[in-house]
Each structure stands twice: as structure tokens, then as C-alpha cells.
């Protein structure tokens, strides 16, 4: 399972706390130290780990709590809340609307999995009966249009692109216009990989956004990314209206924490995760049940209402 090791370490630490006879500051400090170690190993941003630690400490007030039982529950709940906050931005994801053309633009770092994920996304909605299509606005990467074309053909999704046009903005406009006119409901625009250090690439992304006025911009992030995740994700968010996040390659061993930092940076929800190279290896993401599974909690009602 995604982040399984992290979940194990955290539940282990919580259980150890539950087993100790008295629960005081020292026990809490030990618990937080262990949880912090696990989070750092999972690539969670160092700053976020520090703030989780401080927030849990602030939420637990030893003076006001009488019994050991309520202390335990209070601490568990504080940890749960903080983890949930990390995964759940609180923002609502864009939901495509029937009977109109929903334009969804994909952006992200080089090689993060945009083109592959565009097709998975298209396939997901197509199977639910939507009229979907793909536009290749990547004129930079060698073989980009062939990649999208072959993927789209496998998924039987209509596509638009060109071997000769070199202007991604023009391609995006032309593709979107054509599919809009044909009444497509979900028009997905794939773009080149880019990074914050190269201004011209960010400028191009803004131009594509202005040209096609997407209903949602999906930021695609590789689950193996480390401490750079937060910086890059924030930079994307500051330039275009990122509204959702998709985390890819969770079939590897990556703990995914770096990518979770992207949620904090973009203040946008994770809508799907990618779990393989094949088109159907794609799952909707629900933050709350994710954290519940992470902590090995079948039923958290006790915790949540505490």
C-alpha cells in the first residue's frame, strides 16, 4: 500500500504510547520524535514535519486532561488531524460538468508522468460515458506527439496534434477549438515538462493557460520526489491556477511524502494516483480514507469524535 511503511511506523509509535503506564510530556516527545523520523524518511518536507510536531504539542494540553485515557485519545486525534491536514488541502476539486466542454490542462516537471496520466484520465472518464479527447501541446520533447498518439490509439480516444507546428499555444488553441466545435465534453491538454528555474518555460505555460482558459489545471507529480517538491509545486501554483494534483508512480517503493508536500504548496486536493504504466493503473484518491488506511484504522469514528 501507498506509504505503508510510514503508516506502520506511526501506528507502532502510537501503540507504544498506548502501552506506557503514564502519559506525560516525555512520552509525547518520544512519540513525536518517532513520528518525525518516519515522516522525514517518507520525504515529507522538513519544515512541515517541524510544524506538525509543534501543532500536535499545542493541541495537547496536559494540565486540562484528567485521565490517561483521554490523554491518549487527545494525542491520537491531534496526530490524525495533522496528517489529514497534510494530505487534504480542504479545497474542493473541480468536477467536470455534463453538457459543456470541460477543458483540463496538465502541467508538471519533466518526466513526472503527464502524458501517461492524461491518457489514464481520459480513459477513466470515457469508461464512465463521457465524450473525451486529448490535445498534444508538447512541441518540445522528442517523440511527444507519437507518444500521445500511440497512447490515445490504445485507449480509443480521439486526439489532436502536429508533427510540424512548433508553437504550443497555437496547437492548444486549434485542438481545443476543433474539439469544442465537435461537442466533446472533456478536452485534455497535455503540455511539455518544465521547471521553475527556466522562466521561458513558465511563460509558455501561462500563455497556454491564457489561450485555452482551462476549467482546471492538474499538477502531476512523481511520488519519488524529495525535498524539492514543495519549491517546485509552489512555483507552478504561483504562475497558473493549479486546481488539482495527481501523484504518479506509487507502484514503486517511494514513500510519496515529497509529493504530499505538493498538496500543502498548491493548496489543491489530490484527485487521482497513478500505480503503474498501464492505462487502467489509476485510482481516485480520497484523503480521509487514505489517512485512515495509513494509520491502520478501520474505524476512526471514536477518534474523530473524541
Amino acid at each position, binding site marked *: 500500500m501507498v506509504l505503508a511503511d510510514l503508516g506502520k511506523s506511526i501506528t507502532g509509535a502510537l501503540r507504544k504510547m498506548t502501552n506506557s503506564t503514564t502519559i506525560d510530556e516525555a512520552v509525547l516527545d518520544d512519540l513525536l520524535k518517532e513520528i518525525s*523520523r518516519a515522516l*522525514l*524518511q*517518507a*520525504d515529507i518536507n*522538513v519544515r512541515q514535519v517541524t510544524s506538525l510536531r509543534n501543532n500536535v504539542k499545542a493541541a495537547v494540553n496536559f494540565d486540562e486532561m484528567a485521565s490517561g485515557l483521554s490523554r491518549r485519545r487527545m494525542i491520537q486525534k491531534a496526530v490524525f488531524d495533522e496528517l489529514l491536514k497534510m494530505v487534504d488541502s480542504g479545497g474542493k476539486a473541480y468536477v467536470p460538468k455534463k453538457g459543456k466542454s470541460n477543458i483540463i490542462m496538465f502541467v508538471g*516537471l*519533466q*518526466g*513526472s*508522468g503527464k502524458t501517461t496520466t492524461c491518457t489514464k484520465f481520459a480513459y477513466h472518464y470515457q469508461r464512465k460515458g463521457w465524450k473525451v479527447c486529448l490535445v498534444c501541446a508538447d512541441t*518540445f*520533447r*522528442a*517523440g*511527444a*506527439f*507519437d*507518444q*500521445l*498518439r*500511440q*497512447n490515445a490509439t*490504445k485507449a480509443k480516444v480521439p486526439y489532436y496534434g502536429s508533427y510540424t507546428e512548433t508553437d504550443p499555444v497555437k496547437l492548444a488553441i486549434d485542438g481545443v477549438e476543433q474539439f469544442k466545435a465537435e461537442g466533446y465534453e472533456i478536452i485534455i491538454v497535455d503540455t511539455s515538462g518544465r*521547471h*521553475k*528555474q*527556466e522562466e521561458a518555460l513558465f511563460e509558455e505555460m501561462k500563455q497556454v493557460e491564457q489561450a485555452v482558459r482551462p476549467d482546471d489545471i492538474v499538477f502531476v507529480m*512523481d511520488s*519519488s*520526489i*524529495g*525535498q*524539492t*517538491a514543495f*519549491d*517546485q509545486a509552489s512555483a507552478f501554483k504561483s504562475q497558473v491556477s493549479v486546481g488539482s494534483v495527481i501523484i504518479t*508512480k506509487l*507502484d*514503486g*517503493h*517511494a*514513500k510519496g*511524502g*515529497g509529493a504530499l508536500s505538493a498538496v500543502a504548496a498548491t493548496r489543491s486536493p489530490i484527485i487521482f494516483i497513478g500505480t503503474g*504504466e498501464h492505462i487502467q493503473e489509476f485510482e481516485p484518491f480520497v484523503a480521509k480514507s487514505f489517512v485512515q488506511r495509513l494509520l491502520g484504522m478501520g474505524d476512526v469514528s471514536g477518534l474523530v469524535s473524541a
Partner: protein
Amino acid sequence: MLSFVTSIVSGKDLSEDDVRPALGKLKEQLMTKNVARDIADKICDSVCSSLISKRLESFTSVQSVVKSAIEDALTRILTPKQSVDILAEIKIAREQGRPYVIVFCGVNGVGKSTTLSKVAYWLTQNNLQVLIAACDTFRSGAVEQLRVHARNLDIPLYEKGYGKDAASIAKDAIRHGAEIGADVVLVDTAGRMQGNEPLMRALVKLVNVNKPDKILFVGEALVGNDAVDQLSEFNRLLGDLSTLPSPRLIDGIVLTKFDTIDDKVGAAVSMVYTTGQPIVFVGVGQTYMDLKRCNVKSLVKALLK
């Protein structure tokens, strides 16, 4: 004033208690710079034990002693044990009348095919004849991607489309390379997750059948703690899944996307520490010219800045 006095422990043997606070701060710094946690732990532990019961000279602070010990440790880790001179090795292969073979491997999307093209460009700049072998027969567009590069660089491409066995395409490509007098055959492979055993088995087969001169692991500078797992698993499975008496492991590392990480250069440390193999090339952009050598001194400086 008080803090100044406490930071000087002159003329005294250092104890773990003296060293740990300063080390703790440096460890957090290394992790912030994207060194994997386990590796940061190991480096700090070994620095700690090397410092304990060392005599602290007058007027040096614990902080500065610890920092310079970490600096030495990082420099030692990152400095290659032996120099890698691919051009010299190619020359030897040429004298033996056979093409020199380099295989590029790694997880998905890290920059294998792009790096291969940059290396091809660098080799042609050194007046060598290059053949590219398209052995990623799985990912959509992989063959066409290489075809574009081959055309741009005016280099021949050996390809057999999709769905075929990568090991035998590589074999045919190497034979073809020998026929056309290529000095070097560059073998592109499909990206694969380190835990994907069937795909790792296919890589081992490619290696066993073709006995490349160099196996380069391509990893991206963006990667966090997974760097350790990627490299140790690739190496472990290359060993465990091989049927050869002395299996071939990773010979060197290519660190890509170095232009996307500012000063968070810690993946370099994680990767080199895990394998003990050198960083042969560093990728710093998306054009053919963006291939560099690793500068250990500036890496260490960035880590401790």
C-alpha cells in the same frame, strides 16, 4: 557572551554529548538539502564516533570541528575511488576490434533516453562513430523519441519497433554496430520500478546476453529517500537474478535534472553512498550540450551552505 563561552570546550577530550547537538543541526541541514534520512544518519554517526575522545584544540568551537569533519566525510564519499575515463576505454575496445557498449537503465521518466542522446552527441564531438540501439520496446513513443535524436545528431539508429525482446534487439544492434564500424553502441532501455521483478529479470537478461562494457544507472537529482532503494534494489537484483558466476552490477551513475533543484543537491550523496560508484555524468538541462562532470568541491559546498 554566555553562548560564546559554552561553545568553546578547549583543551578537553570531546564526548558524544559535546558533539551530538552540533551534529543534529547538520543532519537536519543535510536532509533539507535532500540527503536521504538513513544516509544522513549514517554519515553523522560515523563522524560522531570519529570525533569522540579527540582532543579539541584551544579556541576552536565544537561547531566548527564537527562541520569540518562532515565536510571531509562528504568529500570522501563523493570522490571517485578510481577515475572513469570512458574515452580511453573506448579506445581499448577499438583496438580489440569491437564496439564499446553502454547500457542506460533506471526507473521511469528520469532521463535515460535524453542522457543517451547527450552522450551520443559528446562522443561524436570526440570523433567517434556511434550507434543507438532502441531497446525500450514498451513505452509509447520511445522508438520515435530516439529516431528524432538520431536524426538531429546524424547518427544511425537500430530499431525493431515495439513488443520485441529487448535483449535480442541489443544483441543484433551490437552485431550491426560491429559491421558498420561503430566505436560505441548506446543501448536505451525501458524505465522500470526497482521492485518490478519481471522487468528487472528482463534487464538482467539484456545484461547477461550482451555483456556491456558499462552499465550506467540514470537517477534524477529530484529523488528523495527513494534514491537509496532504487540503487540498492537495482544492484541487488542485477546480482541475485543473474545466472552468471560473477554478475554485472551498476558501474556508474548519471545524475539528471540537476538544473531543477537549486542547492538541494543531496541525492548525489545518497546515490554514491549507496553504491560506492561514481557519478559519471550530470544532466543540467534538455539540450545536447547539457551534460557535465560532477564537481565534488562545489557539491560539498552547496550541501553545507
